[in-house]
């Protein structure tokens, strides 16, 4: 069987013919669309390594069937930087050493971008830690992750304020 879906991935409209209805968004990205930046850590929605944004919201791409995503807009780690200019969250992760092995990092960063967009946790490290707890980092880079998000959130709030003014 085959099934065709149309979706936007990292700003690019794509029509994808699915060879199999069992394909998850994660395996679509990694194994069929040459976007391996999104990582598989558990394939069960337990670790967050596969986090991407769908229509601006963070989701576990391993739990999402590709066939159900017709018409959506997907952003992955590969689509975050504008050319060579890093997204503020990416730059903050480097500055605060918010990763070690780097494997959970794409998921952490996408989750952080989603979190900042949600606007829940302004400036409150405890809330950030709670709202980032769907993303496991086995290396234990959590302190840097939290500091990086605090900094990026602050930068984003200030940028919004400037835009509003």
């Amino acid at each position: 069987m085959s099934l065709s879906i149309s979706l936007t991935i990292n700003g690019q409209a794509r029509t994808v013919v699915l060879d199999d209805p069992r394909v998850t968004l994660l395996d679509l990205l990694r194994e069929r669309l040459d976007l391996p930046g999104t990582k598989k850590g558990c394939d069960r929605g337990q670790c967050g390594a596969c986090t991407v944004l769908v229509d601006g919201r963070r989701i576990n791409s391993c739990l999402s069937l590709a066939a159900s995503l017709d018409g959506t807009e997907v952003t992955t780690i590969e689509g975050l930087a504008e050319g060579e200019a890093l997204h503020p969250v990416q730059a903050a992760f480097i500055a605060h050493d918010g990763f070690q092995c780097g494997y959970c990092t794409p998921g952490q960063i996408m989750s952080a971008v989603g979190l900042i967009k949600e606007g829940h946790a302004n400036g409150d490290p405890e809330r950030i830690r709670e709202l980032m707890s769907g993303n496991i980092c086995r290396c234990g880079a959590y302190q840097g992750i939290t500091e990086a998000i605090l900094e990026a959130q602050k930068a984003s709030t200030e940028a919004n304020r400037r835009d509003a003014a």
Partner: protein
Amino acid sequence: MSLDTASPTARRHGSNAGQPLTRRDGLLKVTGRATYAADNHPDGMLYAVTAISRIARGRVTALDVGAARAHAGVVEVLTPANRPPLAHDPDEKMPPFGFRVEVLQDDTVRYVGQPIALVVAETLEAATEAAALLDPQYEIADARTDRSNGDRFGLAAVGIGAPPRTVHGDLAAGLAAATHVTEAEYETPAQYHNAMEPHAVVAEWHGDRVTLDMPNQAMALSCAAYGAYFDIPAENVLIRSPFLGGGFGSKAILNGPQILAILAARMLKRPVKLVLTRTQMYGPVGHRGHTWQKLRIGTDAQGRLTALHHHALCATSSFDEFIEPAANASLPLYDSPAILVEHEGLRLDIGTPGPMRAPGEASGSAALEVAMDEAAVACGMDPLEFRLANYAETEPGTGRPFSSKALRECYLEGAKRFGWAGRPLEPRQMRDENGFLVGWGMGTAVFHCPHFPAEARATLRADGTALVETAGADMGQGAWTALAQIAAEALGLDPDQVEFHSGISTLPDGGIAGGSGHTASAGLALNNAGEDAIAKLAAIATADPASPLFGAGNIGVVARSGRLHRIDDEGRSESYVDILARAGQAEVIGTAKAARDPAIAEAHAMFSHGAVFAEVKVDPDLGQIRATRLVGAFAAGRVINPRLVRSQYFGGMIWGTSFALHEEAVTDRRTGRIMNADLAEYHVPVNADVPSLDAILIEEDDPYVNPLGIKGVGEIGITGTVGAIANAVWHATGVRVRRFPVRIEDLLIARA
């Protein structure tokens, strides 16, 4: 594939060893461009999925291979009936570190999770579903799952070749001389590495050569081992491991599933990718073995140790031995006239354990540090005062000097930063503003300093930049960054002028990335290769009448900022670019093989040390435990990059927190099945679980451990932390829990 670690200078700062540079691979990692093994996708690639045993002991009597083969997209199903031969017997160990492996050699089942078939298909979905169609039938034997039914046995060695029993002094006399003997048993559970990146391999054969994209902590050893399995020379095995998504010891040793995938690729003449599922990582790729540890600590009226006895019963598999060298943690730390440490093995129907971050020290220190806390209580002494009273000025038993030991400074600085002074001796004395019980505990951290032979090459180029190369592994420690800093310093260059290549087996052997010894081992090789290149450059310059350095050969030159300077007259200097240009040379190449001087090693005890202080808060009604504050002070020789070192300490302290309060594989004693073989039920700390962390880097100058004075930092953070947290729980509640992890129910049951 070489690793491009060039990153914009604007995002980095500092210029030399000792500076807190950000990671050279940071840009690749935050943009998703860092390539891990399973990210590779060669043309024509097939997907392999293992089917695993659901019983712990017995035989597979039937597999529905027909159903699996009939599934659309399936290319091959490997079982013991058709598995092609291997040149090395998988039931024989592979020296020096290789374990026996389960590669479909027969129908025997030795643990839950053992591979019993390999399905290869055009897509991952097809292979996964076909593996589920195999419907294995078993002949089931009773599983040995616990101390009550496992087989105890004596040991020839523990860990990797360490002695199973060590005696110093007269234990019986020491115990007889004691005014008090503290005696207790401690239990630590089986733990699984659970690196975020599952074990993976993409194997592609070209005739009798194979390319393996795989995470690997020991490339040269692995090439030799794969060569032996596949009957090809080691140099025909190319391993590419530019990034590892965590290793923690589990990616240093060959395992069955990866061998099977490589075999399938050769058989089918197409590239094959295999990625273990999370559940499949609970069995064939090692774990930290379950231990039961008995400690006896004799103390005199002044609170001085008279005897220390540490016995560890350690679980291993039915068919191979890796014995957690837990009791050896009691050897190097506390001064006692009599010390006996000993180990005993316990055979269970489980996958073979292996080295997991701080093997031996983590489990052993957990027990020792709680026992020391109990002994301090028995002596009516503050736990820190008690440890200072038993401070070992030389190595206990042997009297060898330590190569360096700034542990006293760690104790004092850590206590000061934490605010330890004034801690009440009695438990249940402190509450916070919400009524939670507050407790403070501490533990000593210790880790030995191994050094692996390693090689490196440094090429100074005509444009004044350099290329440095060694086949090392960066699994998150920051090796790419710290090693490049060391090389840059040896070459007298800024790190940004140094291109660093690593992570591929064709480069000079970088040794093993394990035992917290990689920075010292590969670093020394890089340093020496850099010095060799500089010496060759100096020979050119000092022999050249046109050089301002002409004739300075006997006086010597120093390399700094891309120039050679006369030692006695720094104003006389010449740039690398000018020296090479005039000599008409495109480059000079320095090489080095480096290892530890055995005479110096024999004469000294070499350890990193530290002290960890913990605060916990416990809900008095619910028993819920939160670690709220951890302060660690560590002395580990020379620090190359304090930013990365601090991150290693934090990671270790979080592992210690996890050991103390979270992680444990729970086995169903009837079936031998691990009931929580996934990341939802096997608890590792998430962000909200992690306390406020502070790591203090204590200065330590070590002239003996290696010429660079570098010790290891990757594992020591776990040690000390586990005991500190458990001791803080006692201090908060008055309940002494001797089984890890400490659980809510332990506190509730004790209270009831």
